[in-house]
């Protein structure tokens, strides 16, 4: 199997874990295959966490570069996606902490831009409905942005990436009960902030 990967044969048939073994052996073709499979989920999470397309692109690069340099430390017993989410969560949290010191670094996109892009493309919707939807999206974005970073990450992992509590806890490097507390507090805050508009 390893020989097949090294010769570039049928990479798409290999499991993520087998590809990671090849990446640890400096096989960039295997990394490209992994990016093809998982780049979108990293971009999605990074975008929803930061609210910026540019930041999401930077984070995708950082995350997969880290996957390459840390490949030797990956244990095939662990599910690759859990490990990847852990790296992504760490980079996102570090990014936000770094942005506090450098507010000019990829500020979140204006809500109008984010919503407008969707409003234009939504089929069968009146202009008014699109604007209302846009406004609601902006309120949700503001509410999510106001959450402490770990609460925000916990909720995004569960709501959009549909991870189990166990995998989300592993991604955030905490216990399941600690994750439950994060989610509970985060949802409580969101509920209070959005109760008027919902």
């Amino acid at each position: 199997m390893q020989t097949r990967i090294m010769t570039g044969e049928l990479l798409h048939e290999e499991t993520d874990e087998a590809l990671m073994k090849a990446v640890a052996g400096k096989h960039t073709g295997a990394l490209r295959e992994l990016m093809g499979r998982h780049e979108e989920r990293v971009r999605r999470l990074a975008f929803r966490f930061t609210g910026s397309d540019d930041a999401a692109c930077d984070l995708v690069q950082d995350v997969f570069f880290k996957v390459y340099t840390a490949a030797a430390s990956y244990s095939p017993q662990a599910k690759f996606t859990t490990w990847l989410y852990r790296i992504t969560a760490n980079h996102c949290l570090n990014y936000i902490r770094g942005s506090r010191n450098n507010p000019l670094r990829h500020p979140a996109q204006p809500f109008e831009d984010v919503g407008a892009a969707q409003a234009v493309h939504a089929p069968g919707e009146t202009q008014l409905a699109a604007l209302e939807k846009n406004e609601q999206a902006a309120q949700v974005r503001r509410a999510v942005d106001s959450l402490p970073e770990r609460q925000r990450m916990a909720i995004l992992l569960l709501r959009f990436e549909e991870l189990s509590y166990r995998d989300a806890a592993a991604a955030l490097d905490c216990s399941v009960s600690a994750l439950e507390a994060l989610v509970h507090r985060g949802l409580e805050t969101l509920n209070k902030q959005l109760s008027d508009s919902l």
Partner: protein
Amino acid sequence: MPQYVQGLLSAADACETADHVQACAACREELAGLKKTWSALGELPAPHAAASMAPEVLQRISDYENKRAGTLRAWLAPFKPSFAGATAAIMLAGFFAGALISSVYYPDNGQAQTGTDSAYAGILSDAPPASFVELYQQTAGQNSQENAL
């Protein structure tokens, strides 16, 4: 409660929660709020479509590997054959120069050494038989004879 909203509870736990919610107005209200919030989160937009970042990542990896290889080359540079040959030549030249200077400045080096050994031999004459000192004296004596010849 959040796990109930997500549908992550087991059938038994879900039934128990549903029963409780029906009987408890406060929990019913909380559950309704949570469902709305959970659903509203779906309004968060997805990222715009973008090209894969794979070329940028692979370029970064290539730069990283080149830099690492460069660092290793720089570290190994002093051990190149040409450098080792030059170092050996300088050391040999120094050795021969030292020997030459020594023979010019101390032409009777062997005589003086013999004399010194004799002086020490007098001091150490009380050494017990078969000791290291006696062995030294025998060796020194042999050297003196060879020098005399």
